[in-house]
């Protein structure tokens, strides 16, 4: 990486590795849309979005009543739902080590993308997570997919059809909403300590208080330091809220929807997902670059995608517990 700070650290989505590439304006064939220059997106495969991690745990617990491993019994692992009337296959890339064929199970014009499995509960290992995402991404290149959370396993194809039938109108509704949409992630971090130093210098009230505190020769400063701490905490929250609001405002025009996920760690101030119309991808890239450029001296932007719309699809397929 160049030591010189490039506005948004954007890295191409590369399939097998988490290597951050510094090559601008090139994508590794995931999407055909042109990307404006300094932008590089990353799609760090090692990193699970908090959403998918959450989904994993949720689906894990939902599936727990089913026997963990029933040898010889076949289940169906569901990757997602697409709109399709005719059977399709997506190669022998199914989850698990057997290289099962990935195919579709239909109800009318909606279909579940599945592969056979003898395992009912998958550990969220890197290998399994990659296999799950790999299938979804393959499907995504040609179809609009409602991605299922990791670890959704049904006993029989009839069970799947039953569920597809029962929630058919909702699936159609969501498929329509997700038509030609892509998801992008944007994480914004800051150097908290630097901002605190800045606040001590520039924030009128904090600056004054800090000066007074340093003048308190030999007197107890415990209370004052606590107060200062609270003041700084508050100012930090305000400042970060201001930044976040401004970033959202800057991107709103070019996206369809946004989702504000909880931040992770001390330095992150924004952890968002955006739903973009396929034809607006370039505009969105430009908007991200512009806002990243604007805050380049104080905020770090980590921009990833395109992803399947994990963050915008909330349909949970319930396991049918056949007797």
């Amino acid at each position, binding site marked *: 990486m160049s030591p010189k700070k490039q506005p948004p650290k954007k890295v191409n989505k590369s399939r097998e590795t988490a290597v951050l590439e510094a090559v601008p304006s090139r994508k590794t064939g995931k999407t055909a849309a042109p990307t404006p220059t300094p932008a590089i997106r990353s799609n760090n495969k090692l990193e699970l979005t908090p959403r998918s991690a959450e989904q994993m745990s949720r689906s894990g617990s*939902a599936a727990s009543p089913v026997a963990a491993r029933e040898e010889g019994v076949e289940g169906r692992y569901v990757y997602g739902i697409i709109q399709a009337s005719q059977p399709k296959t997506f190669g022998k890339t199914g989850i698990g080590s057997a290289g099962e064929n990935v195919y579709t199970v239909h109800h009318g014009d909606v279909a579940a993308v599945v592969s056979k499995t003898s395992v009912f509960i998958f550990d969220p290992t890197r290998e399994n997570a990659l296999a799950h995402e790999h299938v979804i991404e393959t499907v995504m290149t040609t179809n609009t997919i409602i991605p299922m959370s990791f670890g959704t396993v049904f006993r029989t194809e009839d069970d799947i059809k039953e569920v597809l039938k029962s929630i058919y109108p*909702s699936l159609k509704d*969501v498929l329509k909403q997700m038509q030609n949409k892509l998801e992008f992630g944007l994480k914004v971090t800051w150097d908290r300590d630097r901002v605190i130093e800045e606040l001590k210098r520039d924030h009128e009230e904090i600056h004054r208080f800090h000066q007074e505190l340093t003048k308190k020769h*030999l007197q107890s400063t415990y209370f004052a330091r606590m107060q200062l701490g609270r003041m700084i905490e508050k100012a930090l*929250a305000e400042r970060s809220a201001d930044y976040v609001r401004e970033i959202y405002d800057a991107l709103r025009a070019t996206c369809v929807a946004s989702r504000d996920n909880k931040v992770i760690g001390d330095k992150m101030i924004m952890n968002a997902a955006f739903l973009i119309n396929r034809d607006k991808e370039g505009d969105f890239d430009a908007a991200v670059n512009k806002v990243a450029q604007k805050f380049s001296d104080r905020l770090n932007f980590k921009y990833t995608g395109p992803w399947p719309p994990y963050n915008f699809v*909330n349909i949970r397929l*319930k396991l049918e517990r056949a007797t």
Partner: protein
Amino acid sequence: MRLKTIDGTEGGNVPLREADAQLPSTLRLLNAERSYDIFPILLEEIVKLGFARAFVVTADFETGEIVPAAAIKCSESYLQKFRTSLYATDNPLVTTFHSLKPGFVSNSGTPGRNLFCYPVIYKSRNMCWEAEQARRTECLATANFREARKLSLEEQVCRTCEMRAYASLVVVETPKKPAAKSILELESLIALANRYLSRLFKVEHYYNRMRDMDQTIDQMNTVMASMADPVILTDTHHQVVMQNQAAGRFFKLPEETTEGLVRAVELNNMLFSAALSSMAIAGVETHRDLTLVDPIEGEELLFEAVCVPSYTRERLPAGMVTVMRDVTDLRRADMELQANYEKLRSAEDVVRQDRDRLNLIIENVGDPIVVCDRDAQPILLDPLAQALFGPEDETDPVRVANQAVLDAYVSNFTYSFEETFTQALKFTDPTSHQETEYDARSGKIYDERGQVTFTVTVLRDWTPIRKLEQLKVERRMLEIEKFASAGRLAATIAHEVNNPMEAIKNSIYLLTGKVKPEAEPVYEILKAETERVARIVRQMLGLYRNQQSVKPVDMNTLIEDTLLLLQRQLQRSNVEVKTDYGKLPAAVVSSDQLHQVFSNLIINAKDSMANGGKLYVRTRQVTGSDGLHGWIRVLLADTGSGIPPNIVNTVFEPFVTTKGEKGTGLGLWIVKGIIGNHGGKISVRSSVGKGTVFKIDLPMVRL
């Protein structure tokens, strides 16, 4: 003759003057002011006594060696021979040293010569100050002096003050058989020198002690000064003996002073004395709150004063030590804590009340309500929503389908940029399996980052309201039907009554002038009442005569015609008519019926103005909100007696009248019927004593 120390430097700081050398030995030793001057003088005096050479070795307790300390007429190599360990007990020199008794040792280095060894240690008849202070008898000086028991060299440390004393050995080379007298002389000289040495050593010991104490005092002062807590030492009369810098800030007047400062310091002193007196009574360690004034800032500061009595060595009360801790911050923090706690409690109270109220509302709203978080996950379902989506049975296909519909809707709304959402959603009742269309209305709650934190969705089931609407329409239809049949009945009756009525009227007419004069009043009644019945019948007929064809007319002309017809009556009643005609499109109406409407209303107005008044007529075209439909509006206002409020709502019902026997009570009923038949509306506003306004709206018909 110069005296040299071992290392060749000049011995002592005070050079021995030639004149001194001539003095008797006693005086020379007395002249020495420093302990280190004693040995050189002693050695010189020994040589003067006629001994060839002499030297002093001293015990170095740190290295455990015996090292030469001073010498006269001794070569370096000669002296080196006597360098040995303190523990070399086979060395006769060391043995003599340890015995602390003078004696002869054969000189192995110089045959034919003996060595006279005389150990010198710190001794004094009087005990040191420390031992005296501590009332102890274990003083090294006196112990050595008394020689009550032999102290070993290692024990040359005072048990009271831990001072390490000197221990040296004066060694004099003597002939093999020295004269006893010369040895006696030598012994007394060395003993004398040691007395002087002990005295000087004692002085120097005290001097060092003073220096150490000074240092300790300095350190204590630094500690006191750097203490932010005021510390004050007072005597038994509460007079300040000592105070640190922090205390001085409150209780001492600086050189440059102001009135306010003086007042503050005086106040502080007063407060402190009062506190001290009350604490002194307790006698033991006491704590007390004490408020002082900051002399610079003028602020009140809260201190916690801790007071400890101090005692002299004799355990007599010496005064008090008061340490004051500034607890202003603590108190402020405590107050803040208290305030926050109160705030929290009242906020909790408000929240609880709000929650209870909200729960009550939610429970009684009668519509399913769903609250979802930022992840579009339901976090609150009211009992009705619970029934639709509740998680009781995760595999119930109806609930799963309902949840899917809700999930799709809520996530679409949550992540969209819309502030509110309205959509029709179909849910199936899990028990009755009946599908119902709900009107979903959603709103958002935002956080300080402008991001969605919660969404609230209310599902309104319109079925009961639609049913109610249906019922209303049906009832209205029924009323119209009833009205129509009543009208038909009335018309039939009127028609049937009309013919005999005409005959009666004609008969009465024919009787005119043929009635006996006494029957004349009865005849008049008969005539008037018959007229009245005829009028009622006519009006009834007019109401139902709607078979008459409608055609476009100008409403303004129609009103003008009616007014013209009634002009004389109005003039007679002294009613002034004011008209304000707006530009109107043609109205498609039955002109006869409208004629009747206006004449009824105008006559009513005239009747209400027995003493005259004004009648205003205004027509306007009113455009509907959609811009397509419109109304022709006619306003008729009088300044008459008005309609009493108890009947104003019923004036359009049959047989309601303000005219008593004079009126039939059918006029306005008929008016309303006609307007209604034309698809119009009529309303009335009236104020008793002021007048009445009738407003008629007739639909505009585009031709």
